[in-house]
């Protein structure tokens, strides 16, 4: 990519320079002659009827002219006189002289005559391609900073003398445009080269954040300057390793969870046949706890991995049904009346599980849960409020990590397993949503799930 761009820009550069050279040299003597003609025409306007080609004049301005009784460019000064005569359409008997000047080095405004446009060596060398065996080919270069003088005898003893301004890069011709193009191009290439190095780094930062949040690695294109490319390659390697390690752990956890179901079932059946009722009840509770942790671990290991398609869901009915079912199970949970009927795209069972985890947490640590549904800023928002003590501010992010429990003692009593919030977060984020916790000023904890609304809903 870089190579292609470099080649391309070099090509453009060369093209622009050649164009520039070409245009500034473009048969300059010829043009000078045309200008002289224009100047003549201008004079003719005063006496001789002929139209004036203004454009040419603009390009190569006649700096000065005067009518005098002697020529400043004597006929016979340059071999290109005949050419000029032809250009101007002058009769053979009209005397014409032309001299070419170039800038003197280091002395601005000072000119020296260009000898290479000097008089024909043997008087028989008019314009036209020189003979192949001719001695040193007169250089025809005539360009930047150069000027010409033309003298034409318009009547016996009356000469029109013209002097052009030195050729400058201005006006509607090549002018500054190529330079401007060049500058823009250079800046463009510079910016492009910088972006070329920076963009992959930006993508890497983004990918690193994704990797840190859900342990999925989107391979980055290994591009850019050498060092950047190497960094990307190393990052990709790290990402793949991390992803496969975490995936492996998840699979292991899922396999263990899955395999535990059978022995738990077996134990449950055995417990039912215990003679001692107290013992039976204690074993049932222990098994229930074991089962709950197993299922939670299994859910955490497989959260968001189902691959089932998203469907449009009526979120109101989802929240309402869950709240009713949980209330029927004896949880202190209520759903605040609302007219909002947001539709989101998702998997009903996963969103239900996320919300259930939040509600169960609220009831467990905050006595009761009050659930609200609303729409704001293109998101459907479910809020779960409790009446508990809230959580320390510095722990708010930590509680979403697996197996983090804030108060061991309280936890044992209330029976949390430290996976509920982690599972909820994983599932909500798999739906492109956000989950957050905040302590309320009036007391209690507020848990919020925000999900993007269905696009055309």
């Amino acid at each position: 990519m870089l190579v292609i761009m470099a080649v391309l820009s070099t090509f453009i550069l060369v093209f622009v320079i050649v164009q520039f050279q070409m245009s500034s040299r473009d048969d300059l003597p010829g043009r000078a002659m045309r200008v002289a003609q224009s100047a003549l025409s201008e004079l003719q306007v005063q006496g001789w009827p002929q139209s004036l080609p203004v454009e040419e004049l603009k390009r190569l301005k006649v700096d000065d002219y005067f009518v005098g009784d002697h020529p400043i460019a004597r006929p016979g000064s340059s071999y290109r006189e005949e050419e000029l005569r032809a250009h101007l359409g002058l009769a053979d008997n009209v005397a014409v002289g032309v001299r070419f000047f170039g800038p003197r080095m280091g002395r601005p405004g000072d000119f020296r005559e260009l000898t290479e446009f000097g008089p024909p060596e043997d008087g028989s060398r008019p314009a036209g391609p020189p003979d192949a065996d001719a001695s040193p080919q007169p250089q025809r270069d005539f360009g930047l900073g150069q000027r010409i003088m033309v003298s034409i005898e318009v009547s016996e003893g009356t000469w029109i003398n013209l002097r052009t301004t030195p050729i400058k890069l201005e006006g509607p011709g090549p002018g500054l445009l190529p330079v401007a193009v060049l500058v823009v191009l250079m800046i463009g290439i510079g910016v492009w080269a910088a972006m070329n190095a920076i963009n992959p780094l930006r993508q890497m930062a983004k990918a690193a954040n994704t990797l840190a949040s859900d342990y999925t690695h989107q391979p980055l294109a290994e591009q850019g300057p050498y060092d950047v490319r190497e960094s990307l390659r190393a990052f990709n390697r790290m990402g793949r390793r991390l992803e496969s390690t975490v995936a492996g752990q998840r699979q292991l956890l899922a396999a263990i969870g899955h395999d535990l179901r059978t022995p738990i079932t077996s134990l449950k059946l055995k417990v039912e046949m215990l003679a001692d009722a107290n013992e039976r009840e204690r074993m049932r509770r222990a098994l229930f706890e074991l089962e709950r942790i197993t299922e939670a671990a299994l859910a955490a290991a497989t959260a968001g991995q189902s691959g089932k398609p998203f469907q449009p869901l009526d979120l109101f009915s989802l929240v309402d049904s869950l709240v009713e079912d949980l209330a029927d199970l004896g949880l202190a949970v209520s759903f605040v009346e609302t007219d909002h009927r947001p539709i989101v795209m998702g998997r009903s069972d996963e969103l239900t599980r996320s919300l259930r985890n939040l509600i169960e947490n609220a009831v467990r640590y905050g006595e009761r849960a009050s659930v609200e549904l609303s729409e704001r800023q293109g998101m459907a928002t479910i809020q779960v409020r409790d009446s508990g003590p809230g959580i320390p501010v510095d722990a708010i992010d930590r509680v979403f990590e697996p197996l983090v429990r804030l108060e061991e003692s309280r936890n044992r009593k209330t029976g949390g397993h430290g996976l509920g919030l982690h599972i909820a977060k994983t599932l909500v984020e798999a739906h492109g949503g956000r989950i957050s916790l905040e302590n309320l000023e009036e007391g209690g904890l507020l848990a919020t799930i925000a999900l993007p609304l269905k696009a055309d809903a």
Partner: protein
Amino acid sequence: MPDPATNAPEHILVIDDDRDIREDLRAYLTENGYRVSTAENAPAARRGIHSEEPDLILLDVMMPGEDGISLCRSIVRLTSIPIVFISARTDEIDRIVGLEVGADDYVCKPFNPRELLARVRSVLRRSNGNNREMTPEKTRYFEFDRWTLDTAKRCLTRDDGVIVSLSSGEFQLLMIFIARPQIVMSRERIVELSHAEGADVFDRSVDSQVSRFRKKIERDPKNPDIIQTVWGGGYVFAADVKKL
């Protein structure tokens, strides 16, 4: 088929490749008054069914060799023995497949033994009453108004594709109504039916249940088209019901 009135224990065949589960189920079900035989794979199960037709089969879905789904299909084709699936899978898909190949019920490991017992009893009761055809679970989809009810997933799909969730109570209420369209039912009758069909969630009043439900399915809950109130009579499910 043994007559329950004669006290002869009903015969349950347990098919599971896990020896512990087989033996635990045998012990547990025996203790609860059933006669139990076991099989560890599909061929053994077929021999068991041929030699002595059981009253009910508990069938593990995942077994080495021929799996439970395939075995269930062939049993259902040849006999009318009710089948309850036992599986460690909880995916909805498996539950639906299980019911679609003709099983009567489905429990997931680790199931609660008392719940298993309740389901076994309920399936046996239905099969002895010889009214298996009448159980509404045999039809998976119902259509009414602009809704499609999926009884396996327990959700309603609106004609624009939006999925509406149902609580357990609402689902049971809907199943009662859908089996009796255009029939006026008193509140007492609805409660009675809910108990008869194994529902236990009607703690709240039928009225509040209906009014909640209307918010989900009616175009205008205040002016309902589907579940209409009959003054002095109760409720009537006014929409046409189509089985799919």
